[in-house]
């Protein structure tokens, strides 16, 4: 039972639950307390947007717990008004419209890092492939791209910290439960080979060997020799670099990120492949860009297809990907990726200008994807409906299942139900959570 269907117990029961209306001029609460012009519909009567999205949710079947019966709608996005009217409004309650979970304090450093990390990972792979298949220009450009992108992303990571001078504390521990810790170590392992490969290309480009005193000329030879093993070492870790960032986002309580946890890694590696392939097309001469083009096309296709899938499986929280700034970014990303991918496939081989144009479109598409997903998550954390509505539906479904004597499923709950709040469904007060069934 959804809050709307069951007659929300709090409907018309609360006054003063609207948006505070006045800005909490509190530097620490900068995100949450910003009055959000209609974005927060805390109470009945202001539920327009929530209802539209809840419709999506209900027809789309959603997260854990509600899967099954509500699935018949096939997950199609709401089209037109008729369908919207069939479902009662999803009202939900919140505390004065305030956010429930907190958005991360991360700023644009992090989406930039997501992009740069993906670009670095993809370019390392491209660089190794070009090295092994004898494409010197593609190899050089991909290696340099990877090194520059990696350095930029690491700087962004450190810059984003609240205490940048303590960044090295990340290296105190290795925690498998912390994607950020795992990612730090992956990056740490990935960086040396990458830098060696990149440095050798730069050294060759600047013809460093000529300026070195004879006694030190062997250094440049050594670097050249180390470039291939370094490039291979980096390329072995590059897929992890490109995909772990998705886990970084999805292992959070930020609704739009966590709900995307099934597909986001594929979206992110697709985006990484599109961006690195695209940049390869921009920088390398036509004769060598065949693989880059193919990688870009594969990446763009995967990104578009899986992103579509992701929006379906996210259910209600997918709304965050459609509204406001993240909505614009995601639309831009789709258009740029689709146009870039298609023109790379059809025209990318014909003329350098086409290759450059479609490559740039793909890179821009990847940037938009990263910023879009990032901003959607932040938005979903600020707007309590994305936390409350799906959890409430999950809880109600479980209570209903318990009341009907069914196995509530393995999803645990944090709420021990009391007696029915007014006429609200729920179970008998003595309903037990059976340990064995839940953990088995």
């Amino acid at each position, binding site marked *: 039972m959804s809050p709307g269907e069951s007659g929300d117990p709090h409907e018309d029961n609360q006054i003063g639950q609207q948006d505070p209306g006045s800005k909490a001029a509190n530097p620490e609460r900068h995100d949450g307390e910003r009055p959000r012009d209609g974005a927060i519909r805390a109470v009945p009567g202001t539920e327009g947007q929530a209802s539209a999205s809840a419709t999506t949710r209900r027809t789309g079947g959603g997260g854990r717990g509600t899967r099954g019966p509500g699935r018949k709608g096939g997950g199609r996005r709401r089209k037109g008004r008729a369908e919207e009217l069939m479902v009662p409004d999803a009202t939900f309650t919140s505390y004065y419209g305030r956010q429930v*979970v907190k958005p991360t304090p991360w700023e644009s450093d992090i989406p930039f890092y997501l992009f740069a990390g993906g670009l670095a990972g993809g370019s390392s792979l491209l660089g190794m492939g070009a090295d092994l298949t004898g494409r010197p220009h593609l190899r050089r450009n991909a290696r340099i791209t990877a090194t520059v992108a990696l350095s930029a992303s690491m700087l962004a990571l450190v810059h984003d910290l609240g205490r940048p001078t303590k960044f090295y504390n990340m290296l105190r521990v290795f925690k498998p439960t912390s994607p950020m810790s795992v990612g730090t170590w992956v990056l740490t392992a990935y960086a040396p080979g990458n830098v060696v490969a990149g440095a050798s290309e730069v050294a060759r480009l600047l013809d460093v060997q000529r300026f070195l005193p004879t006694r030190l000329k062997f250094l440049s030879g050594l670097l050249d020799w180390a470039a291939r093993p370094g490039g291979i070492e980096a390329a072995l870790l590059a897929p992890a670099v490109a995909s772990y960032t998705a886990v970084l986002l999805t292992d959070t309580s930020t609704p739009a990120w966590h709900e995307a946890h099934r597909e986001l890694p594929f979206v992110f590696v697709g985006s990484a492949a599109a961006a690195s392939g695209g940049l390869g097309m921009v920088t390398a001469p036509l004769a060598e860009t065949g693989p880059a083009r193919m*990688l870009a096309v594969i990446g763009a296709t995967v990104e578009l297809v899986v992103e579509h899938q992701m929006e379906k499986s996210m259910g209600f929280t997918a709304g965050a990907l459609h509204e406001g700034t993240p909505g614009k970014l995601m639309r831009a990303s789709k258009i740029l990726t689709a146009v870039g991918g298609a023109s790379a496939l059809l025209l990318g081989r014909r003329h350098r200008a086409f290759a450059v144009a479609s490559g740039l479109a793909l890179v821009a598409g990847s940037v938009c994807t990263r910023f879009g997903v990032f901003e959607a998550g932040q938005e979903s954390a600020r707007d309590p409906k994305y936390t409350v509505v799906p959890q409430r539906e999950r809880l109600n479904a479980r209570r209903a299942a318990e009341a009907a004597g069914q196995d509530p499923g393995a999803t645990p709950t944090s709420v021990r139900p009391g007696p029915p709040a007014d006429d609200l469904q729920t179970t008998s007060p003595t309903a037990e959570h059976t340990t064995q069934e839940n953990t088995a």
Partner: protein
Amino acid sequence: MSLLTNLKPFARRLDPRRGSDQAFTSVEPGGPAVRAGWGEEPPPRKGFFTDTSICIGCKACEVACKEWNGVPQDGIFELLGSSYDNTGALGASTWRHVEFIEQRKPLGGQTTGVTIGVPETAVGAGVQLPDSGAGSFGATASSFGSVGSFDTIPGPVSGPDHSGIDLFGSLKPEPVRQPEPVKAGTPMVDLGMPSFDLPSASPDAGERTEFRWLMASNVCKHCTNAGCLDVCPTGALFRTEFGTVVVQDDVCNGCGYCVAGCPFGVIDRRIGDKNQPKDAIANKNAGIAQKCTLCYDRLGEGLTPACAQACPTQSIQFGDVDELRERANVRLADLQAAGVAGAQLYAEDPDGGVGGAGAFFLLLDEPEVYGFPPDPIVTTADLPRMWKNAGFAALGLAAAVTTAFVGGRR
């Protein structure tokens, strides 16, 4: 050792009794402190049972927490316009937060038709007063005269004794005033205090009968499976021997990952004040994640946390979690027996999404009314599946590159 501890979750995956998805969330016998490597017999797990049904919203806890922990000011003073709550939310500089919820809804077991007792009857038994001063708090004050009324207070038990010099006489405890029961028929005295009608006392009472305030003191839940702790990449967040979760200021580098890791929106990164000198209290620990420590410093000395100590109603009850759970269940049963609709325990269930919290709540309405997530789940529970997906994605990328070079030789 920390490496071993951190690998434990993976070791547990091999335990055949648990599904792989439970690997990161299962509760070890002995509680979280044992799991975190505090030996087999750490001190009993400590926590809070916050009984919101008796909270009076005095904010003593909020203030006591700030005072004891030296938490800097939380922004400039501004009215939020949301009831009596001008703090807004938990945050890096608000470790306790008292919430005020105004509802058009009667309190369970409460009759809101005006019933003010006359002195003979027990308070609240519900006999209508004569018209004079009826329904005003001024009159109510007298009707509660059995608690102590000034004109019936006996004189000082002993006058100042000048016969000897007693320097410390003034430090002796005050003699206890013996309240004298108000005799039947004592006339009501209008004290001239500003008075206003009780809800529903006025003629247009129909509109106002159903009204209640809910007050709740929110705090970090000190989860058994703490998302913040799981995701912290520096080890700044750690599990204490009391089973609580604490940030180490000197280790945290302010990555802010814990902020998104918490399913309750508790922890936050402190923002300093650029207009203040660097060492000003406003900039204490700026850039570092901060939250309730369950007064780790006090616990170590066998003291009660400042907030619980300051709470005048015992709405915040501190103690061993096992015992608090029992107490909470008794209280819940009492309220249910009294017909209080909506009474429920929140975050207490050890099988719940965060494995039962060290600090749990008795609520009188659904959690989201209080700004709590209705069904919080530690997201690390899904981590094995997420790593698996990421692994497949990584393989996919490698395969795509291979395809591009092998299949795309043009």
